[in-house]
């Protein structure tokens, strides 16, 4: 029986499999984990890329932010889109939730992506001390860029949605669940201090913008970008909230002198010689030959001296992680709208949202009949000889589209598709957030001196004017048309919002698709803008996630 005993012992051994607790341990080999990261300067630089990527995602994952929604809300554009589409864009255009009651989450993605970007910035900012830095300057530079991205993201979100939660460090899901709406002043305080820090420490501190710098660094936040953004925030905050300084006391003088540094200290920035050359569709014509782009163009390129700061887009994305400017697919002319796209530089196949308000066009033509910027900014069916295709399904057709940001074609199709890319995800035109022209216009506004704005006028061959608020406002409207700026200007010009309400009010006729021979009446009631204080609908899903801590904005309840 001895053998049996041995076998029994051996079996018991097999059964117990002692010392195998390590058997269940394993570590991922394709990903890093939070605990072993943020150690080296390279980690920090790549984490900063993550912050920029987070910022880019806001524009990639949703069509509306930054450009499309503000142009629709302003007096520049209508909702547009296809006759079979949902009416979410109408809801935005007319500040009226009853136009599309089921659209309760128009800005949910924007909200989510904005906070994810902010989270990345907060995460990096909270790890600054554990990184080994090569110099204080580098550290400050990284910190400045992350802070700028955070400030810009908050600024866009607070303008859009009003009272939003304020998060200044990484929070856990449990902590996040307890976040209530912050006082808007507290949000502006953070924006103010972040921008002040960035204005002193970001890239190009003590240096000039140059072509060679831009060649490899365009997109990085510079001290000039931060100073200009500070001025923009100052003007919006003081105008919209009827204040004289930013909440932490930054005065007009401080802001003006900061802007002067972008101007006077010879920052390297300046106006591009020819206005139209900043906009691909405005400065291109068709090639005889059907090449890749099929276009010949005088485009100055993305990193030109007038670009103070832009959010960059590419066509290198992969499915699930695109990096194109999604708003562009909405702005491009609707598929099948133009009888013969083949004769234009415009791309076929886009969605035709944000059709341009004819009142905006006619007013401009009255105000500044010889302004070449009209042609550079607006696709005009009539004057460009375009005709509507049979059976097009463009809603709110007005005969005008945004030309600054539109899909491009080369005669048969989108240039993107010609490059084997899907135009819906691969629109690589950058979103220029601040142009030098805006710096000049803000300087005029802050100083009451027309010399800056006359530089802008001079470029497009217009005669000098003397300074008046109305002249300045008209100049901003024309120079910066369809760039996502006008709406916020309208809101800040008069804190009672009467100015904005008057501007967006509309009564006229649009064409809703093929067969709408007589046209359809369209009315925008400016009072609706006043009712909601120009602030948009808070995403309902986020409200329901908040357990009663977040509330719907006035006018949207």
């Amino acid at each position, binding site marked *: 029986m001895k053998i049996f005993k041995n076998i029994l012992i051996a079996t018991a051994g097999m059964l117990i499999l002692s010392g195998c607790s390590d058997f269940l341990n394993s570590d991922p080999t394709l990903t890093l984990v939070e605990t072993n990261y943020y150690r080296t300067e390279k980690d920090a630089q790549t984490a900063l890329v993550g912050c920029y990527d987070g910022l880019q995602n806001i524009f990639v994952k949703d069509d509306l932010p930054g450009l499309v929604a503000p142009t629709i809300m302003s007096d520049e554009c209508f909702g547009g889109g296809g006759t079979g589409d949902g009416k979410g864009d109408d809801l935005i255009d007319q500040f009226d939730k009853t136009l599309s009651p089921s659209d309760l989450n128009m800005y949910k993605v924007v909200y989510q992506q904005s906070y*994810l970007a902010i989270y990345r910035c907060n995460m990096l900012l909270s790890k600054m001390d554990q990184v080994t830095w090569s110099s204080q300057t580098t550290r400050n530079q990284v910190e400045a860029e992350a802070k700028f991205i955070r400030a810009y993201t908050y600024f866009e979100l607070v303008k859009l949605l009003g009272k939003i939660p304020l998060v200044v460090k990484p929070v856990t899901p449990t902590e996040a669940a307890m976040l209530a709406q912050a006082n808007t002043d507290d949000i502006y305080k953070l924006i103010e201090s972040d921008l002040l820090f960035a204005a002193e420490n970001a890239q190009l501190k003590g240096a000039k913008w140059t072509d060679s710098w831009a060649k490899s660094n365009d997109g990085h936040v510079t001290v000039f970008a931060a100073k200009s953004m500070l001025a923009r925030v100052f003007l919006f905050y003081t105008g919209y909230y009827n204040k004289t300084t930013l909440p932490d006391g930054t005065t007009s003088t401080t802001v003006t002198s900061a802007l002067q540094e972008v101007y006077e200290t010879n920052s390297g920035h300046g106006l591009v010689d020819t206005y139209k050359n900043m906009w*691909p569709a405005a400065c291109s014509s068709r090639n005889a030959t059907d090449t890749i782009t099929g276009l010949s163009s005088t485009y100055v390129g993305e990193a030109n001296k007038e670009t103070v700061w832009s959010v960059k887009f590419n066509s290198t994305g992969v499915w699930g992680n695109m990096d194109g400017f999604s708003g562009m697919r909405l702005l491009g002319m609707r598929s099948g709208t133009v009888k013969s796209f083949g004769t234009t530089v415009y791309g076929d196949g886009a969605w035709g949202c944000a059709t341009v308000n004819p009142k905006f066009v006619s007013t401009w033509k009255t105000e500044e009949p010889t302004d070449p910027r009209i042609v550079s900014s607006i696709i005009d069916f009539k004057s460009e000889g375009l005709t509507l295709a049979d059976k097009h399904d463009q809603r709110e057709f007005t005969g005008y589209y945004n030309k600054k940001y539109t899909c491009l074609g080369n005669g048969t199709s989108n240039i993107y598709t010609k490059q084997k890319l899907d135009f819906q995800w691969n629109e690589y035109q950058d979103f220029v957030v601040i142009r030098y022209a805006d710096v000049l216009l803000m300087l005029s506004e802050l100083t009451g001196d027309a010399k800056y704005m006359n530089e802008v006028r001079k470029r497009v061959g217009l005669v000098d004017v003397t300074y008046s608020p109305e002249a300045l406002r008209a100049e901003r409207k024309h120079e910066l048309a369809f760039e996502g700026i006008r709406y916020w200007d309208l809101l800040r010009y008069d804190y009672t919002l009467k100015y904005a309400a008057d501007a967006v009010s509309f009564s006229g006729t649009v064409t809703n698709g093929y067969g709408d021979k007589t046209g359809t009446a369209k009315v925008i009631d400016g009072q609706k803008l006043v009712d909601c204080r120009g602030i948009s609908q808070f995403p309902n899903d986020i409200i329901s996630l908040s357990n009663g801590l977040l509330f719907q904005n006035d006018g949207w309840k």
Partner: protein
Amino acid sequence: MNEKHVIQNVQRLFQNLLNEYVILALLLCSVGLVTAQNSESKVSGTVTSEKDGEPLIGVSVMVKGSSVGTITDFNGAFTVSAKSGQTLVVSYIGYLKQEVKVTGSTVKVSLNEDNKSLDEVVVIGYGVQKKKLNTGATVQVKGDELLKQNTTNALQAMQGSTAGVNITSTSGQPGKGINVTIRGVGSINGSNPLYIVDGVQTGNIDYLSNSDIASIDILKDAASAAIYGAQASNGVVLITTRTGTKGASKISFDSYYGIQNIAKKVQTLDASQYALIMNEQAINEGNSPLYPTTGKAAFLSNYDDTNWLNSITNKNAPTYNYTLGMNGGSDASVFSLSLGVTGQDGIFGNHKNSSYERYNFKINSEHNFYNNFLKVGQHLTFAYTKTSGINEGGLYSGSPIRGALSTSPFLPMYDDNGAYLNNTAGKSTYKGSTWTPWSPGEANPYALMNEKESHSAYQKTIGDIYAEIQPIKNLKIKTTFGLEYNSNSERTFMPVYQLSSLTYNNVDYATQRLSNNLTWNWDNTASYDFKINEHAFTVLLGSSMRKYQGEFLYSKNANLTIADYNHAWISNTTNTATSALWEYTGGPDDESMMMSYFGRLNYNYKEKYMLNTTFRADGSSHFAPGNRWGYFPSVSAGWVVSNEDFLLNNNTVDFLKVRLSWGQGGNQNIGAWKYLSKINTANTYYYYGNGTNSNNLSTIGSSINVTGSYPSLGNETLLWETSEQTNFGIDAKFLKSRLGITLDLYNKNSKDWLVDAPVRPESGASTVLINGGDVTNKGIELALTWNDKLNKDFSYNVSGNISYNNSVVGNVPTADGIIAGNSNEAYANAAALYRKAQSGYPIGYFWGYKTDGILQNSTEVKNYVASMKNGSANNTLQGRNITSGDVRYVDVNGDGAITEADKTMIGKPTPDFNFGLSLGFTWKAFDFSLTSNGVAGNEIFQSYRDYGNKSANYTTAILGRWHGEGTSNELPRVTETNINYQISDIFIHKGDFLRISNIQIGYDFAKNIKWKYLSQFRWYVAVQNAYTFTSYDGMDPEVGYGTADTGNTGSSVSSTSGVDLGYYPRPRTFITGVSLKF
């Protein structure tokens, strides 16, 4: 007349049972003894089968109480030395043992087949058990029954034969998977059961040939399944493959060949009908008509009249199978081997783009050492599967079926040059003129299907080697090492084509995908049977280790040197310039390890009272250290009432057992390392620098940070999902075992789902994985069988089963108690059509507006609008343009406005009832069988059309639309918008059906051909999917497709089913085949 016979058989059976052990003991004692029997007299005789009188070959004939014996020859004859008065013990595998007293020099014995005897054995976890002692709810299907169904997948053959098991095809396309749900969906993370083939765990059994399966046992209740612990919450399917048997070696050959066709086709509008509807649509929108009243013919002459569904249909698609099997063995070794080829072409597409081929090879053997002291054996199956399939599934999959249903008939197939017409303005010539697209953007679905060519191959090797020693009697110690190795490859060729301005491929490319994975397991068990007086015990202790590892590589690149499928290899691609055209990825699969200890105690007293209990401890690498171990107990009891004195000799009740069980199982279906917060480096980048387009970029940054949605934030507190189930059951046999009844009632509560709970995005993630949520499935299952033999030539059987399941979600761990479904599933830009889970509702139910008919006239419109808040048409869904012919959406919450809040449950994809009925008879050499299965109480969500696209074709159902008062109260007027096609019960159809799944008539020539080696030569004809009784107007009511979702497993999980977006129906197949055994 046969009743007496049956009684005799049953009596004989019981006697045999009693005698068996005695005989065995005697035989064992006599081993090695040289007997000195008086062998003066010889007895000769024949052994035949009682059933058909055929001689039985290789039957053992032993003289009782001695070691003298022989086996019958090919004529069933034997000669043995025995004296008058001695008893011969005649035994043969598959037949009841018989004892015959020697009275003269010749003996004639006829043996009864041992079918469905009470001594049946069922497979349980890590062992087998007598069926009558089993106290859990299990169901067994024999391989022979599966074989008869001629399916390529064994699970499909089980449809309708297993109460409480809902089996649905995920598609009718060859080689597509089967969904098996045991006793209701228990988790939003999928409800697939655990598959164990000969003790080796595997993901599915698609690779198995029906002829290699000896039996499939399904463990339905938690008490039966709990021995598989953390993976048992959805039930366990145990497959036993055929092993060899002692005796003369046998060869079997099975083959069939069939042709498949569509059983029921959906009719789409032809050009004339389509023109009518399009015209009406335009008028309804206030647009000008397409053609003047008398100008229809002229209008139509501009276009074609293509029936797209016909164009993609593959007529008389073949299906075939050839299997050669051999098995046999001696006392020392037994073996079973087989070789098989199975193939099936799709009824859509053609052999190139929709087909399935499988080559199987199997060898099982067992070897005996030292008089049963040591047994060593192995199982090994190799399967090589080649598939190609047309696209199916969601809206954006490019499914040619959906394409065929919605592409306008106006679009011609070919242009004047015979090429596929390019539906881009000015790019094709048709009927002599330049083609102007009728519906820009729509593309020829037939061409779309044919342009791409893609084939996959899967190789699976699965098997194990085991050794079992029996150091002392009834103590068995077994160690098993099993493995599963999968190697997959896929290759795709995409040519350049342009079918419309939106459907094109500008550059040819090839993709190549390779992956392989290996799972090994090492199981050790020790079991001991012992008896203390009348108390019988079986103790089992065991341990198990399991590890999964794998790797993958994928590459895609463009510009082939020779642009065709044969040359579509990555090495033949030349693109180096455009990075966007060039994809590559590769890496290890997430590892997965598991370690387990388990035990079981079976006890019975006189086979009258039974108590079984199991316990399992599982450690899984999927969870954080500290939360790795889960513990899963079960206990069950049974009472064989018929063994009590008062029922012992009852004439009606032959067998009656009641049983009660309780147990817990787990579900660990989440990916690896979900407990860690991962930093995502992949796909996170930002390009700084100048560039006018993508080709002019400079610095490439690489970014690192915790990203938003995937991977989500880690959660160290994650635990198993648990399912707890109580079962009460009755097994009974009545009327001399002709009537069998099995009844089960259960209550299954599955809780602690692994749920991606939405969190506030301020936390840096949109969701975080947590445990929470539960669902209760309650049900009842009834199975009845009736077998009878009317005379020597005719016997018949009828069996049926029905099961009812009711599923209600308890708590859902989100703020609003809802886990929402995805939108864009019904048609492009459509809202979500289902909710994954909501308290008080079934899992994955259909969610949308209720409708109340069609607004017939302006008065009804006026009244409807007046019923809204402020009497405002803006509060209707249609808005101010609401008019007669529009749908009357119901204001469910009564707030005077039709809003999202009015959406409610409009149906559910899971049936209340599952049932099956089969019947069969044999008469002389003929046999006949019919099987059917069905469901009731479920709904199907049908959406063939893209309502955002006004030119999409309709099915002919639209001819019954509202087009004037009283014309329809179901289908709204046609419009160019989707306003009447918001997600509502308009899309909902009843899903009840009864399918006659197989009708078969066979004839066994072996009964007439007197060739001594031939025991079976059966020729048969069969119809599969012969007829389906249903009110559903789609092509197939068995819609297994749900919405594809990436579950928390990281793999694709459907959170709902029954969504018909142009579902690949199951074919109707005419089959003829032969089965040979010799």
